[in-house]
């Protein structure tokens, strides 16, 4: 399986996302923001970072970059797309996912190992999780507060489109503790925490037993691979 990772100017976790793809046995394919070319990939990851410095609104300038036209088209045709952190911001700015992401309520950049619950395990990126599974993956952002109007929130909750919810601590003031959401079809998923930083022993979050041993990010990537293999 070939999974594309888009690099925008200011993308930071693109190499990490590529590494995570390799670890689960898929082939990472680097995609460039200025190209109109998805290089025939089977799924796409929009990685974390500060594209264009996030100066206008987080993800806003990346959302109007050339490659996003192809990404939007592919997403609408059902290709799995995962937006991590800045990637999630790009997805909401492109209106592939509803709502918006604004400055953290604490007004500071937050980095912590975050416990979240997988609320929807039927998406392309979460099918290897058990329903309601509680996992810990790193979170690191300045603009992670999820907001939406009352009607949108009601729809998200009613239709089971909240994919992940913060546990213990709501680190950024997100409404309803929302950490990530999915579209109706389940192929487009966005979340603020970083699964790609919890895929390798020794470099992940604090595990239950040992230092930096958390691997809870792996199922995100195995999910999309196993669905591809079974398709």
């Amino acid at each position, binding site marked *: 399986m070939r999974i594309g990772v888009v690099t925008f*100017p*200011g993308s*930071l*976790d693109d*190499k*990490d996302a590529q*590494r995570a793809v390799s670890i689960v046995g898929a082939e990472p394919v680097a995609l460039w923001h*200025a190209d109109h070319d998805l290089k025939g990939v089977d799924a796409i990851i929009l990685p*974390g*970072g*500060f594209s*264009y*410095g*996030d*100066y206008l609104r987080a993800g806003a300038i990346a959302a109007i970059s050339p490659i996003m036209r192809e990404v939007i088209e592919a997403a609408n045709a059902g290709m799995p797309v995962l937006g991590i952190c800045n990637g999630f911001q790009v997805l909401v700015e492109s209106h592939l996912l509803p709502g918006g992401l604004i400055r*953290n309520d*604490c007004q*500071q*950049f*937050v*980095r*912590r190992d*975050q416990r979240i619950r997988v609320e929807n395990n039927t998406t392309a990126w979460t099918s290897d999780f058990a329903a309601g599974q509680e996992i810990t993956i*790193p*979170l*690191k952002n*300045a603009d992670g507060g999820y907001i939406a109007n009352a009607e949108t929130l009601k729809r998200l909750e009613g239709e089971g489109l909240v994919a992940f919810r913060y546990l213990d*601590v709501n*680190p950024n003031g997100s409404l309803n503790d929302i950490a990530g959401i999915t579209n109706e079809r389940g192929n487009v998923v966005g979340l603020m925490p*970083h699964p*790609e*930083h919890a895929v*390798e022993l*020794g*470099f992940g979050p604090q595990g239950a*037993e*040992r*230092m*930096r041993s958390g691997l809870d990010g792996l199922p995100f990537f195995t999910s999309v691979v196993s669905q591809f293999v079974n398709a």
Partner: protein
Amino acid sequence: MTESAETPVHHPDTVANAIATPERVQPYDALGLKPNEYEEIKKLLGRRPTSGELAMYSVMWSEHCSYKSSKIYLRQFGKKVTPKMNEKLMVGMGENAGVVDIGEGWAVTFKVESHNHPSYIEPFQGAATGVGGIVRDIISMGARPVAVMDQLRFGKIDEADTARVVHGVVSGISSYSNCLGLPNIGGETIFDPVYQANPLVNALAVGVLKHEDLHLANASGAGNKVVLFGARTGGDGIGGASILASDTFAEGGPTKRPSVQVGDPFAEKVLIECCMELYQQDLVEGIQDLGAAGISCATSELASNGDGGMFIELDGVLLRDPSLTPEEILMSESQERMMAVVEPSKLDAFLEVTKKWDVETSVLGEVTDTGRLIINWHGEEIVNVDPRTVAIDGPVYERPVSYPAWIDALQADSASTLARPADSDTAALREQFLKLLGSPNLADKSWVTNQYDYYVLGNTALSFPDDAGMIRVDEESGLGFSIATDANGRYCQLDPYAGAQLALAEAYRNVAATGAVPTAVTDCLNFGSPENPEVMWQFSQAVEGLSDACQTLEIPVTGGNVSFYNQTGDVPIFPTPVVGVLGIIDDVARRIPSGWQDAGEHLYLLGVTREELDGSTWADVVHGHLGGRPPAVDLAAERDLAELIHAGAQESLISAAHDLSEGGLGQALAEGVMRFGVGARVWLAELMQRDGVDAATALFSESTARMLVAVSHEDEVKFKGLCEGRGVPVLRIGVTTGAGESAELELQDLFTASVDDLRRTNRATLPEYFGPVVGG
């Protein structure tokens, strides 16, 4: 450049004009040049300088750029060397940053630099651009930056202005380095009234490269193009230059120029990637970052390190503000710029890469073999100098030095006369232990570090709160490095020679504690005014101490920075030589954390405890006292200790190692327990008896060359054998107990504290003054 119709064409002071008007009065003093320096410039040129030349000399001959007061001392770092010290050194002092061979074809470059004064005026931007500047030094060596650290000193924690500076500095560092995608892996956060109106903001950056990718800042090969790329040039940091402008620009002259600089981390991130691609395609002959003194520095340094000649058309510089005069362009400190020397045949490919990254680029001129740096402005020659006189052969001062009148009295005032609780007064011992644990300098620093990303790039093997940060360099082999930095200004105030050595010893010990082999040193020497003979004495002592100790430990200083004029009014800061040590580890999988993760392990104290409370945190926190002599330095013992830990790590005998430093054994035990929430039962009676010290001394003394280690009980015999074989004093002082809610630190016959209580005490302090720790 397209010149807009409104831009007034500035008619600058040309070389011809300078020859024709020798009598012209020039504002050299307002630019910080001394009369003798101005005379020297005239002598070098055989005429008065043009205002452009004056601009260049004044910034390049400043203390900051020329090291004129420190040079004669810094030479010791290059002289006191042993063959072993040169073995791994690919580039030594004098370049943008030193380069160390770490094996397997890899090299590491690292350096620490100050941005103190700008960070007091505008804490956010000052600290942010400090990170930006040091990272560009690393890029200019041909390396990819892979991590940063920050060494911070603020005023008293409860002083009104401290919160302003702390908030600004921490968010400035956080914002810039997070946005660059560089993990922050460690640093220091110290509060002391001496830094009240003069905080210290030092930043360290590390980069990695393959041996063949090494680049140096020199302009060789006549005919090669000189290219400026990155951000546009604006009026940043040239407050002083307006004097020159008014000198030549009679009326309707430029408006106020800012003295602060605003950073653009996004522009720098793009610049990093752009440079990496330029290196990869081998499109660069020489490269230099633009920092202090901007184009003046880049052109004169590139030229003097190369064939010696360069011709520049300054009106080719892309400007953010079209009203800038040539003098101002020469002095501008606009951030996020680089200058490269490019072979003409590679220029198109070079421009292709900068275009890909949307990095604005202008070709300014070329390398020549004339030995002169010539700068034109709209066809008129405004600079014609020997670049070496600007960049290298600046003034050198042997400043007056005098032994401080106050130091004998200070050293005589030992902490040994201060009241210590009796061994039986366990309540007082417990109270003092907790008081230290919650004191600002020993308190948990999560308020700071939770704002820093250490995950990005996916190679961080250790970071705060462990003793040193550690980064994997090679994903296949696990080869990596570890870095720690330290400085104790209080020790240095008591004795700058010993104090600088103690800073080195502690950083060395911190690196050793992770299982790495200490290999190289960088330093940032923060001192008061060099024109104060007592400060100059402190400086000379510190450099001598540091260079002697490096020689004894056989690890070279590869580069660093001097920051003078750190004072409030006439009162200098404590001498604060920040020392960073880099260690190499063959496989980061063998790294050692600073706390234990399992119950039932044996705890050993390595080293000897003496009554050494002078300058200690205990004396400060409990008695508000500073006097006496700092703890004894024992470099041989430090080396034995480091070698022991490394050997133990190779055999995977050691599951945790934590160096003892500020706060002594009590603090080390508390940190060991808090690290993973696994408790410990500890007995000190044998230690007190063996070393002949009371309980307070056993807990709070800051004797050096000590470490607390955890070893699984099956390995007891092997480990003790290792210690005895190497002559490292070892004493079993405890056992690790359980994790969970009931976890506690039990000091038998003295007192007990639950892990929860320890954490609460340790974590409450910073939030009390600066607001909640983000995300708890």
